[in-house]
């Protein structure tokens, strides 16, 4: 059943093809004639046959000749329009030379042009990019003109074979499959089958189970921020505490970070706050309960200064835009709009809840501090929020 018995191995084939008289010797050649063209796959027997002329090559039965005899069209060798092809050849050569030069230009620009400052980087980028573009484009153009204007325009037709296997093939497949399945005893011994399946179950679950330690359980961490009674409000950027008097200009909005956490991204992602001062009488924060949670009240303001969470209740972008005249706070991500003068209630967009209000008071030095943490979770909704 081995291959060796059915077909001669490669070495045997080569030996068989070699002519007895020329064994181990170079074929004789008349001086002044070109050497015989070597075969692509380099079998010595074939090379010799080629030297003896076309008819004998065919008789030796090289694969290509044998297949070509089965009515396959041969590709033409001559270009369709020889004069046209001559011009095309010049253009192709020019393109490839250009690609060569541009490629050299890239290397020269790489070696010659430094970086490390913005101007130099842009200059280097221009030189490298331009030379690379020209090299690649010229290569592509050369190849395209080559195939379209040098190669003769042929159209070939190939038969499609039906994808579906023939009836006997399908039957033979089925027959052997059943045979082998029976031989394997898989069908006959159900306990083997079932215990095998049982054995794979926990193994299949392991890839999921071992992901458990990729992170801690959320617990109640989404319900709290680092704000605590007496924690000072720091101005984002300068990190300085703030008195009510210092924040006297009505209408503006500033960003506040909690003292002690000004460089902690995890804390800031929840605890960042916006501070807005209103003209007296404009701010009308209602006392609102939502599901038993107090979410905003006038008692949490100091001198018409109100603090809201900066984290949008939609998907958590910072609500960074404020329109003084209308008191609209706008989230730049998805345009949820909140009315700052009325407890940051939602007036447009996908955010489902007002921005939570941070209770404010002042400490002994007059600095603005938190009265407590937020009384409800800040930021986007989550399943356990309730």
């Amino acid at each position: 059943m081995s291959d060796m018995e059915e077909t001669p191995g490669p070495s045997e084939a080569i030996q068989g093809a070699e002519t007895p008289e020329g064994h181990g010797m170079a074929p004789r050649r008349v001086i002044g004639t070109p050497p015989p063209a070597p075969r692509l796959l380099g079998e010595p027997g074939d090379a010799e046959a080629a030297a003896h002329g076309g008819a004998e090559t065919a008789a030796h039965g090289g694969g290509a000749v044998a297949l070509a005899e089965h009515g396959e069209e041969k590709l033409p060798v001559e270009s369709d329009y020889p004069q046209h092809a001559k011009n095309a050849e010049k253009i192709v050569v020019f393109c490839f030379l250009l690609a060569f030069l541009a490629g050299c230009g890239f290397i020269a620009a790489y070696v010659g042009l430094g970086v490390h400052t913005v101007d130099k980087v842009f200059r280097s980028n221009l030189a490298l990019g331009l030379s690379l573009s020209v090299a690649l484009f010229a290569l592509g153009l050369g190849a395209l003109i080559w195939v379209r204007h040098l190669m003769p325009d042929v159209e070939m037709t190939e038969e499609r074979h039906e994808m579906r296997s023939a009836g006997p093939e399908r039957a033979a497949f089925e027959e052997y499959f059943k045979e082998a399945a029976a031989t394997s005893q898989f069908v006959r011994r159900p306990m083997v089958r079932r215990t095998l399946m049982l054995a794979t179950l926990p193994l299949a679950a392991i890839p999921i189970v071992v992901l458990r330690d990729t992170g801690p359980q959320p617990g109640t961490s989404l319900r709290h921020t680092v704000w605590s009674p007496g924690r000072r409000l720091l101005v984002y950027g300068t990190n300085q505490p703030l008195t009510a008097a210092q924040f006297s200009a009505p209408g503006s909005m500033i960003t506040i970070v909690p003292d002690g956490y000004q460089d902690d991204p995890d804390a800031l992602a929840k605890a960042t706050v916006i501070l807005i001062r209103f003209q007296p009488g404009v701010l009308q924060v209602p006392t609102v309960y939502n599901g038993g949670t107090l979410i905003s009240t006038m008692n949490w303001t100091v001198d018409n200064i109100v603090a809201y969470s900066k984290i949008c209740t939609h998907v958590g972008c910072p609500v960074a835009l404020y329109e003084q005249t209308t008191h609209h706070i706008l989230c730049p991500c998805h345009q949820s709009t909140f009315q700052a003068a009325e407890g940051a209630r939602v007036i447009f967009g996908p955010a489902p809840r007002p921005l939570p209000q941070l209770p404010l008071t002042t400490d002994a030095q007059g600095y603005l501090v938190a009265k407590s943490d937020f009384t409800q979770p800040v930021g986007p909704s989550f399943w356990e929020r309730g």
Partner: protein
Amino acid sequence: MSDDVNVPGALTGVGGWLDDRFHGARGLRVFMRKVFPDHWSFMLGEIALWSFVILLLTGTFLSLFFVPSMSEVVYHGSYVKLDGIRMSQAYQSTLNISFDIRGGLLMRQIHHWAADLFMASLTIHMLRVFFTGAYRKPREVNWLIGIGLFSLGLLEGLFGYSLPDDQLSGAGLRIFEGVLQGIPIVGTYLAFFLFGGPFPGNLIVPRMYIIHVLLIPGLILALIAAHLFIMVHQKHTQMPAKGNTEKNVVGQPFFPYFMAKGGAWFFFIFAALAILATFAEINPIWLYGPYSPVAISSASQPDFYMGILEGSLRVMPAWEWNFLGHTVSFSVLIPFALPLTIILGGATLWPFFEQWATGDRAFHNVLDRPRNAPVRTGVGVAAVTFYGILWAEGANDVLADKLQIPLYTITWIARVLVIIGPLIAYFVTRRVCLGLQRKDAELVEHGLETGIIRQLPDGEFIEVHRPMTEEELGILEAKKVPALMPAPGSEDENGVPSPRSQGAMGWARGVSNRAFAETIVVETNGHGHGNGHGDGAGEVAGEEHAAIGSGGEHGSGDGADDS
């Protein structure tokens, strides 16, 4: 023919050596002679393929210098405007790639442009496959692989542009995290496990990195290999033309034609990306600054392929349920899940729906012209409209600014259009398709109007029509229309009602089937009656009516057809 080619000695040795060991001569010969049909639209998928190759090349270069770490450092590098700023190592190394590595900025920009081109060409390639019906039997599996590639490409792109940890991509990640949290029951845990704790943590960049450079590219590579193997094995589809049949493939052999053309196309695409990377700045992260959860820049836009998700988040009204101590945020959940489910889920089911509705189980190797499949084309244009409206809404702030229309008005227009736009698109497209079919029918019957007016001896003026050439008829007459199934409740000659036509499913199938079967009949034997008539349009319209009417009792047609 090989006698003319003097094969270099080095090649002959290697070729023989390999064939001795792998028996490749026969199979490779078949492959070299493999015929590939030619059409401009067949190059679209190739753009995606070559973009992916360029992504691998440039991505490998970038990975030599990128540091996937969120450890904080203080920057003292070449970009002096950020001197002394705290940032992650990921952001710092991206600055270094841009300003300190020669060619680094170019590679970054080629990589980013190539990612955009990959997704764009993938999308257009899928549209081509859809509108020409190339997904039909036997190519359904390749269609599904394509949908898988598109989905993986979305994720790969999102993770890729999030890696530099700049202000813009950090905002995108924050949105991603907020959306994850919104998933009922498991969402909070998913977010905590992915980010290794509360947002942003310090693990997300290294985790995204390994997914971006190993896991997803590996999957994409495997799927592309399968996609190409199946394409070669099943042979490419071809456009309808004279001589093109279901049983042949007409074109040029792989070696040398397709090989040279494919190579040229690779260099053109690479050149185009290099030109873009040279002159069109993309993702200048040094202008955005390092990520801080405190700040954001206005007009934050994701890369274009995420635009549909961004737009659906923006278009959704606030809608949330609180019950039994739990929160379900539909204003996050619906935008996240619904549009992509409609488009990708719909695309997944479509080939099987079409088979069910048409009863067509045949092999299709010759493509349909879109006009000849009005329902498919209509549904496709409806899907494009749906996608396009959400995509445009993703830039509603930019549109409001440029068009000077109030922001909320734009969102309201989008809210209405996203519902009725696809319906209008479907009906209009179907009418346009039937109109084009009618034009084709006229061309086949009466020939082409030449613009030459002739006066007959009795004084009548007629326009000379040129009969269609064989080539033109080859295209025009390639139309195939699905067969009409028995109408619901109808009986065969023995008085037995068709079991397939019963019940709600039978009714739905009948309705879809009649829609698919609607067509304009071409009178191929009608060449004789030519010029005298002058009212061709009305006549064809009558035939259309007859074609619909033959479907059974629901002769009135149009309105009842639409599923």
